Structures are given as structure tokens and as C-alpha cells.
């Protein structure tokens, strides 16, 4: 019964998030005006790009927290959660990179500039790409959980160094607007829609995460059932 209630709650959540994000998209085009100082027609993409990048970092943090949990408690579920959070982080990260790249082509004359934030996003994507490479190279479930959690945490230890290093990559100063977060840098309409977008993505993340977790648990149950009953499925 509780399972049924949970799945009904998830369905309700889905419609809520869907409606919220639809409202944010409409607001981004109808309510928000063009910002000054950008190439014409390009300023609105940042309403989607910035929260996507934030969301991807939040998802990677989530993944690392679950990795610590998986190492400590040796629970399969924690390992699955860590994997799914990393998957979603990668999804949001790729979307943020692509939208950022489109914006860059319009404003900075090139799809890729080795701007500090572009670089650090690229390194994040490479780390979690490697993480999935590692996962697919280990057959045994328990061992995969331990090894990938170790890599996840180790990456978390190294990440702070990027903060020092990245601004020193010789190419350029940051092209990203620097003091836009201070008051007056961004007009109120942008601020409202941007944070609403982040809220919407958080909701989307929770929904996708729960959905993925349910699918993963079902697949796992199928596997153990077919093993215990001695019937080969497939």
C-alpha cells in the first residue's frame, strides 16, 4: 500500500514540476526583457544555462555524499543512488556545456574559449565520464561499488585544487560576467526567473532520481528472483 502511495505521490510531483518548469519557460520569454550588453537575442539562454550548471554541481555533490555512505555502510542502495546522482549530474553538465557554448558563439565569437569556468566544467565532465568507464570495467557488484566510491571521493579531494589552478590557465581572463551576483548586476526579473528555474530543476532532479532508483531496484529484484528460482530469463 505504501508503495502505491509513493508512486502516486511521484506522479503528482511530476505534474507539479512540469507545470512549474512550463511557467518558468513562459516567464523567460514573455516576462523577462532583453538584457543590455549582450549580442541581440542571446541573453535569455543564461536563464537556463546558469541553473543547469548549478544543478549539475549539486548532483555531483549528492553523488559524492552517497559514495561516502556506500563505503561506510556497504549498502547496495547507496551505491545505486551515488551512480544515479552522477548520471543526472552528467546530464545537467552536458546541457549546461552545450547551452553555454551556444551563448559563447553568439557573444564571444567562438564555441569554446578555454574560459576558466568552461575548463572546470570540462574537467568535471571528464571525471564523471571516467567514473562510468570505471564502473563498466568491473564485473562484480560489491567490488564495483567499492572502487567507484573510492574514485568518487578521491576526485572530491582533488577538486578544490582546481579552484586555485583554473584561473591560472594561461589563455585568458574569465569571459564570464564577474560581478553579476552583486546587487545591481542583474535585474530583478532575471533574478526571479533564474532562481525559479533552479527550483524547477531541483524538482526535476528529485523526480528523475526517484524514477531511476525505482527502475534500478526493480531490475535488481528481477535479477535475484531469476537467480533464486533457477530460471534463466532472457
Amino acid at each position: 500500500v505504501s508503495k502505491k502511495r509513493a508512486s502516486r505521490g511521484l506522479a503528482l510531483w511530476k505534474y507539479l514540476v512540469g507545470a512549474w518548469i512550463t511557467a518558468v519557460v513562459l516567464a523567460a520569454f514573455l516576462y523577462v526583457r532583453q538584457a543590455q550588453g549582450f549580442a541581440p537575442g542571446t541573453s535569455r539562454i543564461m536563464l537556463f544555462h546558469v541553473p543547469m550548471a548549478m544543478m549539475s554541481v549539486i548532483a555531483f555533490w549528492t553523488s559524492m555524499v552517497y559514495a561516502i555512505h556506500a563505503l561506510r555502510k556497504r549498502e547496495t542502495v547507496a551505491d545505486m543512488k551515488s551512480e544515479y546522482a552522477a548520471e543526472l549530474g552528467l546530464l545537467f553538465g552536458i546541457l549546461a556545456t552545450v547551452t553555454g557554448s551556444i551563448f559563447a558563439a553568439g557573444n564571444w565569437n567562438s564555441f569554446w574559449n578555454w574560459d576558466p569556468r568552461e575548463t572546470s566544467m570540462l574537467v568535471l565532465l571528464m571525471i564523471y565520464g571516467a567514473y562510468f568507464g570505471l564502473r563498466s570495467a568491473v564485473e562484480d557488484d560489491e567490488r564495483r561499488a567499492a572502487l567507484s566510491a573510492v574514485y568518487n571521493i578521491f576526485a572530491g579531494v582533488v577538486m578544490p585544487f582546481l579552484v586555485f589552478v583554473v584561473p591560472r590557465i594561461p589563455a585568458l581572463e574569465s569571459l564570464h560576467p564577474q560581478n553579476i551576483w552583486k546587487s545591481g548586476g542583474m535585474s530583478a526579473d532575471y533574478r526571479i526567473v533564474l532562481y525559479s528555474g533552479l527550483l524547477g530543476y531541483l524538482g526535476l532532479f528529485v523526480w528523475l532520481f526517484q524514477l531511476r532508483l525505482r527502475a534500478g531496484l526493480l531490475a535488481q529484484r528481477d535479477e535475484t528472483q531469476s537467480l533464486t528460482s533457477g530460471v534463466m530469463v532472457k
Partner: protein
Amino acid sequence: VNAILLFALTTLAVISFSISARGLAEGVKAGILSSLLWVVLFFSAMSGLPRVFVKEEDARTVLALRLTARPHVIFLGKLMFNVALLFLVTLAVVPLYLILMEPTVQRWGPFLAVLVLGMGGLAGASTLLAALVAKTSSRGELFVVLAFPLLLPLLVCAINGTVGAFVGARPEEIRGYLVVLAAYLVATVTASLMLFEFVWEG
């Protein structure tokens, strides 16, 4: 060990006869030469470091090792082997590089410090990853993929520090890079000591 040294010398030879930095402006030259030096050192290290644990798996001595010694002792032993290996590579490559490519080293102290800390950090971060990779089915190929994004901060600092030593930058400027390299070394070795157990027993 022989293979790694030969690998390093081959790369060095390729670079030496294909690129001449003579006649370039001082700043550009320092940038190119320090990048190339670290490319040679990095790829030589990448060709050798993952072997330490794979060797044990291949020779089927892992179980015996696991029975006789505690995890952190094994980790420190492997780390020291890797450090020794990299210093050997550095000793072979750097003098030859200085002779063949003729960079002007203005500050020897910082230059050597960057080399020592950079190679130490390379060994420090790679040892845990080598242990990880030895437990997977693909081993060698995976190692570079896992290591590169994590070693990027180290490489950037080492390259910039070397540029500073080549052009004779102010000592405070180079000291910043040295501090980060040292912190990287300490952080990765500490984290490895805590995490190694889970890899080794897994």
C-alpha cells in the same frame, strides 16, 4: 623500468628533432619548453605507474601480500617504489632535456623544487589509481582516463612553476605554485591512505 626509460628517451628524441625553440621570444619559448618537458615526464609516468599493482595480479602474488602485510604498509611501499621510479625517470630525462632543448634556467632552486614536488605529487595521486585499475578488467587503458582529470591541477601548477623558473620570476610568485604542489601531495597521499584499504580488500 627499462621500458619506461626508453619510452621517455624516445619521446624526448622526437621532440628534440622536430621542434626548435631557437629564435622565439623569451616568454613564448619558456612556455613551450616547460610544457614539453612536462608532457615528456607525464606520459613517461603514465606508461609506468599503473604497472605496480597489475604486476602483483599477474604474478598471482596479491593474496600472499594481503596475508603478510597491513594495507597501509603495502600502500606506502608501493608509493615509495613509484617515487623512486619517477625520480629515476626525472634524472634521465631532465639533464638530457636541458642539453638538447637549451632552455635558460634562471632559478635553479625553484626549478628543482618544482620537479621534486611535481613528480612526488604525480606518484602520490597515481598509486591509489593504479591499485584501482589493477582490480578492473581493462587495466592499463583505463588508467590514463582516470588519472588525467585528477592530475590536471598538478600539471598546470608544475608547468607554470617551471615557466617561472625559466624566465626568472620573483620568488614569491613561484612559491605560490610550490605551496599548491606540496598541498596536493599531502592531500592525495592522506586521502589515499584512508581509501586504499577499501580498494585492497575489495
